[in-house]
């Protein structure tokens, strides 16, 4: 005679389908003959759970889409490679003319005025402002007795205007950019240096060199050219050569019929 524990196990095995057909039929016969066992079987069958209908609402958030790869054609790849190679080649050239210190870079981007050192009244009282020093040496091409009066267009007693980009007093003849800009058909609106866009400055510099003259301009950073273009502006008909003197300064050589001038632009770190 099997005890309750054994019977429960038998009923469980039948429910799970683990009994052989013979064992199952034997057990079913016992259930028919025993009311208590039949009740137990009913309860055992009730333990078989029916899965409730449950719907997970966030399926859409779980659905993934394939990552789309940007298909580059062979031509596009070649173009991209060519651009990359060009940039790589340009970089050393760029570096050649770049000032090496960070301070110089900062200065170049924020210079607000040009100060001519060797002149008493040109020393700016605002010493803390970033400055670009420009030393101009005028050297006649001919002996002094042969020196002609500068051409009218080069004598530029232009009234100082605070809004204009200027160099102070001594370089009065170097000061005015505006009249020349007008003559050259450039933008006549004077702007503070810091407000000029780099690209514009470069454009102005190029325009200052007459197209019919072969410019020996070698090219430096556009922001530095902003200062240089002011200095070179009066020498509209001159040949201009800009070359790095050392890591901190640039030499500008003007050559015209009346003048042969050299300007040194040295860049001082910001205070």
């Amino acid at each position, binding site marked *: 005679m099997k005890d309750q524990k054994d019977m*429960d*196990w038998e009923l*469980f095995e039948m*429910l*799970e389908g683990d009994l052989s057909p013979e064992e199952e039929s034997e057990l079913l016969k016992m259930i028919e003959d025993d009311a208590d066992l039949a009740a*137990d079987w009913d*309860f*055992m069958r*009730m*333990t*078989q*759970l*029916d*899965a*409730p209908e*449950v*719907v*997970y609402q*966030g*399926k859409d*958030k*779980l*659905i*993934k*889409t*394939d990552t789309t790869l940007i298909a580059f054609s062979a031509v596009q790849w070649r173009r991209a490679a060519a651009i990359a190679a060009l940039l790589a080649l340009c970089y050393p050239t760029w570096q050649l003319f770049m000032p090496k210190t960070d301070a110089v870079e900062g200065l170049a981007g924020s210079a607000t005025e040009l100060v001519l050192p060797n002149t008493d009244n040109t020393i700016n009282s605002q010493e803390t402002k970033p400055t670009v020093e420009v030393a101009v040496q005028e050297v006649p091409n001919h002996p002094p007795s042969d020196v002609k009066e500068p051409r009218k267009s080069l004598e530029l007693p232009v009234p100082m205007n605070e809004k204009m980009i200027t160099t102070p007093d001594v370089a009065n003849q170097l000061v005015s950019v505006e009249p020349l800009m007008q003559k050259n058909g450039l933008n006549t609106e004077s702007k503070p240096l810091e407000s000029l866009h780099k690209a514009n400055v470069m454009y102005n510099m190029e325009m200052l060199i007459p197209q019919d003259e072969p410019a020996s301009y070698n090219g430096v950073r556009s922001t530095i050219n902003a200062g240089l273009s002011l200095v070179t502006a009066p020498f509209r008909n001159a040949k201009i050569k800009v070359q790095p003197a050392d890591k901190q300064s640039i030499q500008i050589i003007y050559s015209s019929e009346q003048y042969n001038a050299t300007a040194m632009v040295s860049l001082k770190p910001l205070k």
Partner: protein
Amino acid sequence: MTTKEYNKCVELLSDGIFRFALKNLRDEFEAENVVQNTFEKLWVRKEKVEMTTAKAFIFKIAYNNCIDIIRKAKRSTTMDEVVENRYSHSEQYSDTLEIINGAVERLPEKQKTVILLRDYEGYDYKSIGEITGMTEAQVKINIFRARKFLKAYLKDMQLVI
């Protein structure tokens, strides 16, 4: 497993995972988290999971996630509350289904898990063992104990009603 197969798993199995987690945790918010975590893990490992074993893999992740949540919850639950929940018969049941659901809630974790996987998802002992880390014999004995408990509970409740 491809993305398409993964999405098929979401379609076919997310309801089951949600139901399994909801039954185990009795917390809809936590159950939703389990579903999200499970499929997130499947997505991360989809390259290593075959479609044929995906269901067991998913349920295993969900099961482990549920166990973690239950253990964390237990740490913040006093023993008295557990004992009271385990043996309290104070609820009012209106039909057999509610009685059974009430009884299932009172099953120990392992027994509840194996019986849910067995009856809800139709897994065999071997698959349940793979999910839960038990042997087939352990699975079977846990299912037996669960059914025995439910049977006794139903019998008692029948007498009360």
